[in-house]
């Protein structure tokens, strides 16, 4: 009887000890290509190194990350970590994992530039909240085969948006291609050319002014291009509200000459276009204010409500490791945010020549982007500007309002959104 009680006691103690050290972390992951698959592979190694910690990777649509996750987090629920793009907007829910990482200074050195986008608590905020696993840059892709068929030379370095639009239109006309130019229906995409046209977006104190002469100049140009058919009207006018819409399908099926999107499309184009035609990424076209796209990317963020902060901190530390990042980036064919890897370069062994060239173009152009573009990306309420831009510019395109009315509304929408966010 005594031995039975003793055995039961030992069993209970073992069970308690096991459950005390066991932690399950839930990772909500969205992917443009193979990002979640690549992470799942690496996470197996993390689990082997950290016995008792399991990580469940839930692959979710991007819409869930953009619309569902913020609501979950606001109510103190949701995954322990997630792959997100709205770094500033979600920063208030993020966990500072500094106490749990082995070398915070090394992480600062490698990721400091993008960590800044999550540091919304003032200049003294040095927290480690999220590790970027995909640096992106917006910019154009061009169907080179169509240019060759039309006998039109690709505009060179320093060419303006007007030069590119004219060239793309000529190519479309000569080759009978449906669309000359298309740009994703996104305020993020709009911001790049707007800054190139001279938009300052922020005043000297860092407060948004959104609509100024530069912003207006590109808005006028963009609406005019939609009206005269230079830009595919379907993309922006074909949807309502601030709904995102891309034109990747049109580009991959060869019915679009020039597509203003971003580096995250490279893997998709490599896979979907194959040998069908030659395509290239070109540096951001120029305007009176410079030649810039918008930086961006996705980061894996830890959240405050987790029940296992230490294990979560260890996981973020693992994800920040150079060897782990290099393995993930090689598989996902993304540009590194890690400064050391940016300097060393990634061996994209499985990438085609087109993909490698495009990755090089975007990585190089990123270094030339305007400081305003980085400020815009790091601004915590940038989505308020993006949403208002898409909704109101579309209204001007379809004739629901004049452009002046639309610009006035962008201003008031942004002010109202910021007041509500206070």
């Amino acid at each position, binding site marked *: 009887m005594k031995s039975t009680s003793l055995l039961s006691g030992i069993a209970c103690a073992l069970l308690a000890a096991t459950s005390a050290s066991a932690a399950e972390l839930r990772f909500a992951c969205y992917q443009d290509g193979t990002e979640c698959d690549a992470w799942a592979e690496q996470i197996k190694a993390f689990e082997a190194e950290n016995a008792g910690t399991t990580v469940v990777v839930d692959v979710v649509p991007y819409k869930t990350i*953009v*619309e569902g996750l913020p609501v979950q987090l606001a109510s*103190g629920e949701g995954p322990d970590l997630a792959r997100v793009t709205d770094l500033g907007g979600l920063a208030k829910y993020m966990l500072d994992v500094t106490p749990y990482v082995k070398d915070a200074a090394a992480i600062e050195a490698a990721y400091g530039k993008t960590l800044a986008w999550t540091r919304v608590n003032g200049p003294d905020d040095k927290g480690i909240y999220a590790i970027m696993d995909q640096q992106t840059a917006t910019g154009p892709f061009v169907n080179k085969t169509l240019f060759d068929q039309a006998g039109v030379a690709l505009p060179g370095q320093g060419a303006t948006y007007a030069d590119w639009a004219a060239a793309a239109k000529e190519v479309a006309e000569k080759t009978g291609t449906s669309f000359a130019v298309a740009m994703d229906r996104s305020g993020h995409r709009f911001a790049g050319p707007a800054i190139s046209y001279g938009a300052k977006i922020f005043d000297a104190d860092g407060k948004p002014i959104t609509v100024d002469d530069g912003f207006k100049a590109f808005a006028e140009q963009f609406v005019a291009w939609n009206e005269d058919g230079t830009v595919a*009207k379907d993309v922006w006018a074909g949807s309502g509200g601030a709904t995102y819409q891309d034109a990747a399908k049109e580009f991959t099926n060869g019915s679009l000459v020039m597509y203003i999107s971003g580096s995250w499309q490279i893997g998709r184009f490599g896979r979907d276009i194959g040998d069908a035609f030659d395509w290239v990424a070109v540096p951001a076209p120029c305007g009176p204010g410079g030649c810039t796209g918008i930086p961006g990317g996705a980061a894996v963020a830890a959240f405050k409500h987790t029940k296992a902060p230490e294990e979560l901190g260890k996981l973020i530390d693992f994800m920040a490791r150079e060897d782990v990042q290099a393995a993930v980036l090689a598989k996902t064919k993304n540009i590194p945010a890690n400064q050391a890897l940016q300097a060393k370069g990634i061996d994209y062994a499985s990438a085609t020549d087109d993909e490698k060239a495009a990755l090089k173009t975007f990585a190089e152009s990123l270094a030339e982007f305007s400081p305003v573009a980085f400020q815009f990306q790091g601004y915590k309420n940038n*989505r308020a500007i993006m949403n208002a831009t898409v*909704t109101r510019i579309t209204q001007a395109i379809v*004739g629901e309002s004049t452009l002046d009315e639309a610009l006035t509304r962008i201003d008031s929408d942004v002010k109202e959104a910021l007041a*509500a*966010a206070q």
Partner: protein
Amino acid sequence: MQSALDTIGRGVGRLYAAAFDLLEWPMLALQRLTGAQRIAWIFLLPNLVIFGTFTFLPIILNFFYATSGSDAILLQDRPYVGLDNFATLLACENYLQPNSCERDIFWRAVHNTAWFVVLQVGFMILFSLVTALILNRDIPFRGFFRSVFFYPVLLSPVVVALIWKWVLQRFGVLNAALEGAGMPTVNWLVDADWAFFWIVFVSIWAHMGFYTLILLAGLQSIPSDVYEAAEMDGASKWRVFSRITMPLLMPTMAVVIVLSLIRAVQAFDEIFVLTGGGPGSATLLILQFIYETGFAYQPRLYGLAAAASMLMAVVLLVLTLVQLRATRSRAEG
């Protein structure tokens, strides 16, 4: 064989009786405790709890959200703002011109919803009635046609929208057919007027089968001797329709009108997938405005979305009451 079946039947019967005997004692005890009148509440309790939790509680919560501000989701973090959210929605120089309103998109959604309800409900009831009258006649393949008209009702709204998007997009089936016939093509979902026409059309296509079925049941419940009497009196077809069919169909028609009205005001999924509310806000209805204000935009204005949903609920309530009153008056008169 028969005796084996009898044995099984008796066995099942005994089990059934035993199960009820088990329940009898607690039920009798409960009845003695509560009294025969109040025991009904005990039976209703589970339903009341579920209904209260998932219907009444959200309505009350909605009221609290509508009267509070900020982008916080937890009620304790939301400051009380009184009727400010309603005032913001209703601030307008001219309600017929959305551009003059503070929340112009909301008023565009109100206008679109009003037009959508009038056109969709009006035409759908007309088409459903005509279809039901035809299907009520002794036509060849009647069973087949009844199934055909009902089939779209079984489809998910998202599937309906994707099918029609495939048909209506720039390089879709319809334009291919027009091009093949040497006719000019139209960018159906980018032209505001056409996009609105198509959301009404697709919505009617998807839902009319359901209402046709209800009206058909109503038509079949009209006694045939009334028609025989009218025929003996030499009444014309129009007179039979206007003096017999329609008056006797009115109770069913009232149900159809109320149901379709409520459903039209609540329209969202098909239109969201088909046009996304565009081009611009040409097909944006109130429910999408509520969704985008509360969940898609940053910051998320839950208060404004809740206020808009309360205004919509009031309109629906008024419409339903007016409709029910009109039907009752007609029935009594």
